[in-house]
């Protein structure tokens, strides 16, 4: 860009007209003729084009970041409404009643049997059509609720790569893996939730982590984790393990 020449409004608008093809034929003819003969003019036009391309490219760059943020929409803890948590607790309670009700059906006391008796996947979070900001997360939640754990795991894993520290995601991935009979993967994800200083899912995560260790045959670690959970089911499972 040359220091000496000034940018005039006339030239700017002429270049604009030529670029967006709104210049009339005579104007265009003159313009092209001058470009060929007048080197200073050619340089001025090149400068203006650089300005225009620069504006466009930088604007595009900034738009791409906006597009990308939408791909990145996170499933943060904050996005889980209080009401949802309340419903979830009721659902958990209902499952506990069912689980306890079926208690006497089982007589043996092997780890597998205990696991089968106590393990019921978390009922999941209500999926709302309007929650477009968390679409990917809730889309996988639908698969999870339908029992298509492998699909849910695949989708959540993609999200998890972007949000490795999201407790909601790690919790449901853990439970989904447990339901999918991969207790080792479940242990990894659930442990990451229990090590957080604060999480709405911490209490449940300890319970499922205890179950995962039970499934893996590690009774000591199972008891240790169940001990940290205040869920009723956790306590009754613990007392059975201690029997």
């Amino acid at each position, binding site marked *: *860009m040359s*220091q000496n020449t000034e*940018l005039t*409004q006339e030239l*700017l608008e002429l270049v604009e007209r030529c670029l*967006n093809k709104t210049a009339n034929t005579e104007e265009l003819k003159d313009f092209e003729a001058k470009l060929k003969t007048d080197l200073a003019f050619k340089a001025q036009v090149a*400068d203006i084009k*650089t*300005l*225009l*391309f*620069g*504006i*466009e*490219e*930088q*604007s*595009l*760059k*900034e*738009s*791409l*970041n906006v*597009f*990308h943020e*939408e*791909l990145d929409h996170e499933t943060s803890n904050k996005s889980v409404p209080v009401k949802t948590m309340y419903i979830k607790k009721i659902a958990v309670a209902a499952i506990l009643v069912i689980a306890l009700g079926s208690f006497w059906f089982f007589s043996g006391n092997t780890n597998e049997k205990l696991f089968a008796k106590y393990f019921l996947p978390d009922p999941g979070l209500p999926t709302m059509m309007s929650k477009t900001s968390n679409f990917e997360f809730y889309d996988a939640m639908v698969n999870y609720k339908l029992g298509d754990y492998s699909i849910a795991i695949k989708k959540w894993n*993609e999200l998890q*790569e*972007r949000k490795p520290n999201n407790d909601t995601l790690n919790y449901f991935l853990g439970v989904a893996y447990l339901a999918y009979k991969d207790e080792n993967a479940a242990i990894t994800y659930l442990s990451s939730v229990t090590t957080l200083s604060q999480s709405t899912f911490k209490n449940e995560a300890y319970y499922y982590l205890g179950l995962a260790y039970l499934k893996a045959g590690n009774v000591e670690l199972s008891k240790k984790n169940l001990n940290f959970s205040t869920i009723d089911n956790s306590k009754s499972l613990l007392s059975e393990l201690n029997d």
Partner: protein
Amino acid sequence: MPKVTAIIDQESSQIQIVRAIKNNDLKVLKALYQANYHKVKALVLSNNGSIAHAKDIYQDAFIAVWKNIKNDKFTPKNDTAIDGYLYTIAKNKWMDYLRSKRYKKTLVTSYETHFNISDITIDEFSDDNTNDERLHSVMQSFKHLGLPCKTLLTKFYFEKKSMRDIAKELKLDAASTRNKKYRCMQKLRKLALNLK
């Protein structure tokens, strides 16, 4: 018998896409961007890259495709041509990066280091480096231009809105919008010159 109507439709949809890209139609650009990212991400992640690498490479490739379409260096032949082209450019850029000294150096220090891939696209090896520098200084200046000017210039030159519509949005009359636009261009030019 070839399905002529199908061919025509396909062609016209390509022409429409090219036109939309040239006009920076945000809806089309966004759809194109979001539809192709995951494939590139998978490629980078499975070839020693991180999520941050994937984003940088992909955005670079996307801008290269946009530029080439704009300058008629690339004309898509069918519906999936743009997707394939975008993926190929991203792949080449990633291969270049893996072969680069910067990557080998990064390997020693840390995987996490951010990087900037050079702006040279595959069919853009211009011998005119000064031109790239100028463009770069304009872009940097525009990035830091005051918001009123930036908004006005973005609407006019990027979103291709008419002067009348912009004047309406900014609650100004057409003549003062036109003058304001000119003053903003002077300001941008001055900033870019100082940056050089």
